[in-house]
């Protein structure tokens, strides 16, 4: 189970979300939206100085992330041909469904995620309604919420795996 990428898959998802968050912050700081009085809007993206360096750093991180991610998937699929990770299915790859025990653990983890969203989404909606939060921070909030679900799922599965 130690080399099973399905266990660490939520962490990869979280890393992907944090990379996207980096781009959101970059766009948030480097872009200007102009609304015109006769309708429509203009989107200006200015890369210079620090934001240019940051963009290059982000691109390197994305490149490294994708290489490591697909390399690990390849290794996992070679090690565990019966539990392959496939990018062509809608089913989340982190689900463990080897037998009824694993299905039960997956059910427990997804129940926790469901409970998390049942509380977090209304709270977030109220916060967004009441506080003057900009688009960028709203998007960051949504991304943090998404990262939170993977963290909850990972912690539950990890607890089970360490007790095996």
């Amino acid at each position, binding site marked *: *189970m130690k080399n099973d990428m399905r266990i660490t898959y939520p962490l990869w998802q979280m890393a992907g979300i944090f990379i996207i968050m980096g781009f959101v912050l970059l766009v948030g700081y480097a872009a200007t939206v102009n609304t015109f009085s006769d309708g429509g809007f203009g989107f200006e993206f200015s890369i210079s100085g620090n934001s240019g360096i940051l963009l290059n750093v982000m691109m390197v991180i994305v490149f490294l992330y994708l290489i490591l991610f697909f390399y690990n998937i390849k290794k996992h699929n070679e090690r565990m041909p019966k539990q392959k990770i496939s990018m062509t299915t809608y089913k989340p790859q982190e689900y463990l469904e*080897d*037998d*009824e*025990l*694993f299905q*039960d653990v997956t059910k427990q983890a997804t129940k926790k995620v469901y409970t998390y969203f049942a509380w977090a989404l209304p709270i977030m909606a109220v916060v967004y309604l009441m506080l003057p939060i900009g688009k960028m921070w709203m998007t960051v909030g949504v991304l943090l919420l998404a990262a939170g679900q993977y963290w909850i799922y990972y912690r539950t599965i990890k607890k089970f795996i360490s007790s*095996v």
Partner: protein
Amino acid sequence: MLKNRLKELRARYSFTQIELAKQVGVTRQTIGFIEKGEFSPSVTLSLKLAKALDCDINEIFWLEGEEEHEE
């Protein structure tokens, strides 16, 4: 709570957890969790275990408080 004597019956046939797991089509971890009482198997799996251990399902599993098994 569901109690069991799976470990005892498995030992009778000198099965390892892996061997029994293979026979009934589950993972070794599932057998371990059932033996520890941390997982209640489905009726299907219980019947498969009973068949693999050549005994009645009631000999493997019983509900906590049932005197005949607890004695």
